[in-house]
């Protein structure tokens, strides 16, 4: 091609590119985007149901942006007191903030307003839930390992931001329930040593509740945090694109390839369609199931509260931690340290999120595994990690259940005091037990996998031998299952270093290295190796022989 042809799009070029060639040419003439676009359209993604969990989070976020924008058209974040005169009769004549009265107007006077509010609230609940389950998937399959640690940290930040975003939005209607949540949040801020009182005064523009907090939460909720979320989600997705998605082991899958379907047209249709499915289901649930009926709670006033006050589900674990903490407070040199507040509300979550964010490095350090991983672990094949995950999950679940201890106590007529003590005990007793049990189950599943490889699966067909002995026929498993089972990465525990080197000089770093080697061994202990090729061959021969011998002189007595 000559230079002139390169720079000028001829009609022939346009035709060759098809009907949309005009737009494509326009863009390519300005961005040289052809190569990138081709790679994008041809990009292969692996298929697995669990890879859609993150998608649900992404789509919920889009639904939130959309429905939230509509809500801003009617919502008024003002705490100026007005007398309600809208169409909801039971609250007529009641004094309330403009924030609450505008939320009532959205719910009762704006057509479709209630639908938008309910879509927004349900989508928020799904958003945090999807992030959480996506996180569990990534954790238990080891998808966070090198080279994806950065995306894991971004994911952790997204979770924290989603919690803050959820809480700030939940507070905006200024109803009695959310106001109580805000009161608790203010109390927690106020308890921070040294700066707490000042931070609380500045945030609320004075004492609680003041008249400023709704406007401030509003700008945090609709600008600051969504902006951060949008930016981080964008980076999160670009990283997934650039690094390519992980995949489960299976036929044809290796560390160096991706097996699946192309973005265009399969995922365009499937993922695009899935967005509409998530959106559609959210709208249907919003239409049929009432969430956050603020008109029943009434406007906020600091002297009232409803019994059985419960936050949205994702704050439940924090509330549970606050409920379980014993009432320790120290007075020192005229200052107060409220351990009963800062430990459960700040220290414990701080440790939990820090440990979560750093986990990829903690595991890599403990195991010494610095390899890249693109094939996922089946949870059973990483028993220690799976055990640790279930342990953390158990800890979280106990806090979550403790967050509803009053509701449980009322429903089952139990003593709230003894329940609190039970939860305090279980919080420390159950997680280690969960660890051990999970690890045992994982190892059991690995043994079963090995059994399947060596002896095949149980067909349910039972033979009776002439000797009277019964024998169940096993059939070899298919290649897909074999590939799944054998797609278990080698584990290489760190070597124990010699305390003294070849020249008899003491190794000063030996103690630390020994500790790491021991940690690595602990992490990989009890790993069950997959059968060797020889074992497989021998077992196959044996099975064939046995079956042949049996079939030649027996009759089948049962066939389920």
């Amino acid at each position, binding site marked *: 091609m000559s230079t002139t042809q390169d720079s000028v799009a001829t009609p022939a070029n346009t035709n060759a590119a098809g009907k949309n060639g005009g737009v494509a040419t326009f863009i390519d003439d300005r961005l040289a985007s052809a190569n990138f676009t081709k790679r994008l359209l041809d990009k292969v993604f692996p298929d697995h149901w669990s890879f859609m969990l993150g998608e649900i989070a992404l789509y919920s976020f889009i639904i939130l942006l959309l429905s939230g924008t509509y809500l801003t058209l009617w919502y008024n974040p003002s705490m100026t007191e007005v007398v309600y005169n809208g169409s909801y009769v039971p609250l007529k004549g009641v004094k309330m903030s403009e924030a609450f009265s505008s939320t009532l107007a959205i719910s009762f006077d704006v*057509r479709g307003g209630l639908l938008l509010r309910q879509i927004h609230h349900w989508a928020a609940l799904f958003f945090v839930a999807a992030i959480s389950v996506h996180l569990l998937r990534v954790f238990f399959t080891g998808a966070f390992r090198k080279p994806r640690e950065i995306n894991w940290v971004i994911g952790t930040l997204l979770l924290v931001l989603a919690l803050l975003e959820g809480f700030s939005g939940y507070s905006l209607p200024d109803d009695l329930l959310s106001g109580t949540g805000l009161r608790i949040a203010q109390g*927690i801020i106020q308890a921070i040593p040294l700066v707490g009182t000042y931070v609380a005064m500045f945030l609320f523009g004075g004492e609680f*509740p003041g008249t400023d907090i709704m406007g401030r939460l509003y700008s945090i909720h609709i600008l600051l945090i969504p902006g951060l979320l949008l930016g981080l989600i964008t980076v999160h997705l670009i990283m997934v694109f650039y690094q390519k998605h992980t995949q489960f082991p299976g036929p044809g899958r290796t560390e160096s390839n*991706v097996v699946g379907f192309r973005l265009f047209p399969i995922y365009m249709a499937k993922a695009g369609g899935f967005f509409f499915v998530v959106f559609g289901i959210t709208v*249907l649930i919003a239409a049929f199931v009432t969430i956050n009926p603020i008109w029943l709670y009434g406007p906020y006033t600091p002297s009232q509260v409803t019994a059985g006050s419960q936050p949205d589900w994702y704050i439940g674990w924090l509330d549970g931690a606050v409920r379980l903490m014993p009432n320790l407070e120290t007075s020192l040199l005229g200052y107060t340290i409220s351990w009963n507040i800062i430990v459960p509300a700040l220290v414990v979550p701080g440790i939990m999120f820090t440990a979560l964010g750093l986990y990829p490095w903690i595991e890599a350090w403990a195991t010494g595994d610095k390899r890249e991983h693109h094939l996922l672990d089946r949870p059973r094949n990483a028993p220690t990690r799976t055990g640790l995950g279930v342990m953390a999950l158990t800890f979280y679940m106990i806090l979550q259940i403790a967050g509803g201890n009053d509701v449980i106590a009322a429903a089952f007529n139990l003593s709230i005091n003894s329940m609190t003590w039970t939860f305090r005990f279980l919080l420390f007793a159950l997680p280690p037990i969960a660890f051990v049990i999970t690890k045992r189950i994982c190892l059991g599943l690995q043994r079963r996998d090995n059994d399947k490889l060596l002896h095949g699966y149980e067909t349910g067909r039972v033979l009776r031998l002439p000797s009277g002995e019964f024998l169940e026929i096993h059939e070899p498993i298919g290649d897909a299952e074999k590939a799944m089972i054998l797609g278990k990465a080698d584990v290489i525990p760190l070597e124990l270093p010699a305390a003294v080197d070849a020249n008899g000089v003491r190794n000063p770093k030996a103690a630390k290295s020994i500790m790491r080697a021991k940690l690595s061994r602990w992490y990989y202990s009890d790993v069950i190796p997959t059968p060797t090729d020889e074992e497989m061959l021998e077992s196959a021969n044996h099975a064939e022989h046995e079956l042949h011998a049996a079939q030649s002189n027996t009759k089948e007595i049962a066939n389920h």
Partner: protein
Amino acid sequence: MNELEHPTGDPYGAKDGKDLVSGITVFPMEPHVLRKADIDPKAARRAERQVAAMFTTSSLMIILFIVAFVVIPNTTIITVPVIGTVNANHLATGFAFGMAILLIGIGAIHWAKKLMPDVEVTQERHSLTSRDDERQAVAESFARGKAESGFGERKIIRRSLLGALALFPVPLIVLLRDLGPLPGTRLRETIWDKGIHLVTDATYRKIKASDVPLGGLINAVPENLLEIEHDEGTLNQRGKASIIIVRMDPAEIVSQQGETWDYQGILAFSKICTHLGCPTSLYQQRTHHLLCPCHQSTFDLSDSGNVVFGPAARRMPQLAITVDSEGYLVAQSGFDQPVGPSFWERG
């Protein structure tokens, strides 16, 4: 050797059916199984009709949405089994809109699953690590820039710049100063004072001592609250000054926070939980226990409001009360300590 070495050369390549990095056995792809729609044109046409039907129904649902939105008054409340009473406009528009969206999604996925190719394709990963010479080149570019800028040698520029950059965000923090007032004594004071009448929370009626029933609980506020709330336009004072009044048999009172702070068995306590500030509201007449509904802190009102259970660390502040000449309850003085949750400077 402490660290695990990356295999040299091709970091991923599989060899002899084994993946070099992980050591896993690689199995060949399974043969593709044709779907019904791939071999039977009838099945393919049926799938095509199904997809088109879903997209068409979606369009009809949008029309239904518009009709429902316009026709059904927003005030029509209907009762639907299972769901209960619900706004008809909300239900109909939500149903139509939700179905319209959902059908597009299901249609697209059905289309992809039945009619688009389902042959898996394999794509190679590219290395996520740059070659050594590339890394070297970057290091050289950086070193060149660093040398050209003189950032290394010109210490005085470097230090003064770092100093300026460290100070530049300070105004951004200072600018936040007028977000709110300094704490001062705000958290220590309430509007209670000597001689202020106790009035009912909702109706602001003075309370006659003889009208307080034995075993009863009354939510109360100071008489001057209404005026102050009106002037300040905030609920701040209510958040601190709200109290509860209980009456018990004087013989049942084990202790009080001050001598004769009750009036004939009538006791007044702050309503604001000393844990995180929720209004405590659940009073058990038999045990004289006051329970906070937020985190279940429990206070024994017959025993100086001491904590008997839960995460609250401090007893509920008691308000000393008496009666005026007409027998109405009044405060003997303000609270002798800050009410509500803890704070650093509380002491």
